[in-house]
């Protein structure tokens, strides 16, 4: 099964922006479980796009104003949810932020 890991944190998590993943990425790659991964610039640099009545509506900032921000993502391939949970728990960001696990719809 394929899962998206959303790495989230509040503003204090920005302090960890340059931390890297402490070997997590390499480990996951070695096991052949990592499909894609990326870190994201902060939401202040986001642009949000909507098209309504054929008009393009652009706004600054993220779509949802929440305290928790998405700082990065990974797409992993696991046998089941338990494996995905274990993989997420090993990610260093789980130690200061939160990681949301979302199964892909098949």
């Amino acid at each position, binding site marked *: 099964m394929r899962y998206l890991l959303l790495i989230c944190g509040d503003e204090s998590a920005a302090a960890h922006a340059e931390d890297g993943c402490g070997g997590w990425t390499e480990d996951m790659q070695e096991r052949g479980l990592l499909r894609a991964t990326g870190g994201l610039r902060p939401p202040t640099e986001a642009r949000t796009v909507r098209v309504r009545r054929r008009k393009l509506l652009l706004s600054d900032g993220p779509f949802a104003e929440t305290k928790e921000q998405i700082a990065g993502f990974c797409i992993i391939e*696991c*046998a089941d*949810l338990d494996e*995905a949970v274990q993989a997420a728990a090993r990610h260093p960001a789980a130690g200061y932020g939160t990681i949301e696990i979302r199964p892909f*719809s098949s």
Partner: protein
Amino acid sequence: MSTDVKAAVDAAFRDEWGRIVATLIRTTGDWDLAEECAQDAFAMALQRWPKDGIPGRPGAWLTTAARNRAIDVLRRKAVGAAKLREVAAMSPPPEPGPVFGTETDHSGVPDDRLRLMFTCCHPALSLEARVALTLRTLAGLTTAEIARAFLASEPTMAKRLVRAKQKIQHAGIPYRVPPAHLLPERTPGVLGVLYLLFNEGYSATAGADLVRQNLSAEAIRLARVLARLMPDEPEVAGLLALMLLHDARRGARLDAAGDLITLEDQDRALWDGAEISEGVAILEAALRLGRPGPYQVQAAIAACHATAPTADHTDWPQIAALYGRLLEFLPTPVVELNHAVAVGMARGPMAGLELVEALAAAGKLAGYHLLPATRADFLRRLGRMPEAAAAYRETLELTSTDAERRYLNRRLAETSGQA
């Protein structure tokens, strides 16, 4: 239909339903199909057994019937040959009797119920979903029965079950017993669901729906299965012992009006001696494994009460020590309060009062009626009547059930009369 056949089908249902469903889920991967085919097999038994006689091994007959039904359905759905072979290889339950040994792809004796329990009680599912799934798939209660037991409408319960099964599929919740290193964190989840089921049934009043009252029996039955499948887990045995020791007192718990009778006032002749002996024996075997846990300690407390010939013979010092031990596992304010009660009985009301006052001063359990009720009781026993009366009044404000209010008003009259 003869009552023999009806009784045989009922017995087979209790013994075999969960096993058949669990195996069909593993072989077909389809929860709904598994339930349907198991249901069809029992319907066939009701038709055929009156004519053909009750088979020597009802479980094997039902397993074969359910398997054949599944093969028919899958054929019509034109699934691949590999899947069909897997279902066809589904073995009838081993003979004779219950299976000892853990879940097992290695020992050659498959019992898929353990997988089913862990999957139904997976932490990714809501507690409500875990309870409903366990009752439907393992205990074989109908959706209507589960809805009645939890005072929900049938469509609501049906929706809850559908969503839970969808979540298992879509989120990839595995159908297996967790690996050894995950068992310590996952087993309590299974035990928690069984204990919740037990308590739902145990707290059901005499007038409550029979389905609801039967939840305790279902919980005990499932705990027995789990204890057989996980013989090395003393907490599983501890939970089973705890349930049996509580259940043994069921007949003495309510008076004619349906009011709760406190432990000390219960007629001990109404307690089920055989159930108490069984509970104590199971607990002792579990304790010998040398890995105590919260269920074993609670069972030990229940055993102290259950084996005291009269209320006056209760070994309160032992119970107080056990509550102290329980606090190490479950450091909750409610356990602290129970500890205080036991200390009050073991070492006198002053010692108990000090612990309760400390709890109250810490602001724990604010609004919980048993806190002032316990304080009131200690103050009354110390002869400090005006303070006791004030505490009883405080308790009355927090209490909603009629039976408790009647009791408290009696106490209030006693204490304010002497004030």
